[in-house]
């Protein structure tokens, strides 16, 4: 009886490991889509009344989206007297967004050079392009998820079966 339970647990564990890999791909894709929406939201707010950065970033900082850690970091830094230029602060913040894959982080780092510049319209245009880039990355991530999640599930199941055979 104990052996059967052990085999079931081993199989379930391997399957879960495969599922976890697939779930992480799903999270990456969702984070990229959400980040694209956040960029569009920032562009909308800039177009509406061009608020100062602390006000602009406050909304995203309060949420639990993928950019929330970056916004919270920037909001805290903007209150400091001794701080580096905003571009550096933003890059430090983006590095805290662990839900995002490296290409997303790389793309988002560019926003640090856009936000807070002279022309709100140019900022809006730049954020719009960034949102497009993130959507492209999200589409690639979706494709990868569809392809790889099956691989993860099958690999997890196969490893589980192998373990069951070995235990049997």
């Amino acid at each position, binding site marked *: 009886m104990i052996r059967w339970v052990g085999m079931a647990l081993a199989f379930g564990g391997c399957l879960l490991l495969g599922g976890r890999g697939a779930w992480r791909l799903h999270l990456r894709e969702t984070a990229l889509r959400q980040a694209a929406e956040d960029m569009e939201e920032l562009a909308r707010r800039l177009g509406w009344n061009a608020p100062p950065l602390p006000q602009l970033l406050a909304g995203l900082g309060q949420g639990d989206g993928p950019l929330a850690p970056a916004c919270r970091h920037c909001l805290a830094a*903007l209150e400091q007297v001794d701080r580096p*230029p*905003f571009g550096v602060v933003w890059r430090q913040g983006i590095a805290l967004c662990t839900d995002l894959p490296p290409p997303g982080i790389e793309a988002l780092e560019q926003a640090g050079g856009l936000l*807070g510049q002279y022309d709100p319209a140019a900022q809006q245009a730049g954020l719009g392009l960034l949102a497009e880039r993130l959507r492209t990355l999200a589409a690639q991530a979706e494709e990868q998820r569809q392809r790889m999640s099956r691989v993860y599930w099958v690999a997890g199941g196969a490893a589980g079966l192998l373990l069951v055979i070995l235990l049997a």
Partner: protein
Amino acid sequence: MEDWKAFDQAAGCLPGALRLGALALPEQVRSRCEELHLRAGRQMTWSDPAGEQPVMLRGNPLTVGEEELRLVVELATRSSLHAALEGLRQGYVTLSGGHRLGLCGQVATEGGQIRGFRHLSSADLRIARQRQGIGAHLLSQLQKNGALASTLILSPPGFGKTTLLRELVRTLSTGAGALRVGLMDQRGEVAALCQGVPQLDVGHCTDVLEGCPKGVGLMLLLRGMNPQVLAVDEITAPEDVEALMQAAGCGVTLLATAHGWSREDLLRRPLYRTLWQEKLFSHLLLIRMEGGQRQYQVERLL
């Protein structure tokens, strides 16, 4: 706010060593310093009516770099150049507390309008202070038929026009018999609103409109706030004069400031000649500097 505290607040927009140098100045100097001057590749200096002196940190002069000037603007605008664009196009940023950071350098223009600064070469941090008590005795001289007369405050830049206007407004709208004052504070230097609350005392019965062009703002104040006195800082454009003439026709008393040395100086300039011809102001309040001290002189025009 004590004089040195105003200085410390303004110096908060300086980065690293520059701030440390400014804050290391003796309290007596911080109390009387009116401006801090930052010029790329040169020493940071402070000035009062007597002149400019270098700011030293541990015995060494502080040389300003262009990167530091950029950081000053970043700190002053909280990294939001777009939110301070109107002021930047006119070469200044107003800081929390009403302090003003004037800027110079190579500008990028479009259609004859400044889009931004390519390179910064100088910044001038002017410290805003309250001088409570200086307006009370002047108000008694600004009367006509028992009521406050429309008055133009005149002096060259840096002589304290804005400070005097703030004090006159505060005195007028405080205490028994206070008047309702509509304050058109386009640059945010007179009242320095922060989330709607004036950071500098402009009295209990003063309604402040900030950031709005004077032409639009004066009419808005007249229609919406029913002021008895309209106060406006720095008449510099024909639209400002036009708006003042419209407001004067509505029966309110005007308090305004302008750059100039004297009555003759006003008459020479076409912009102010109109004010003169239309008899908008019945008194002229001149600020002079004698031996490092400000002297106030009232002249009747009508």
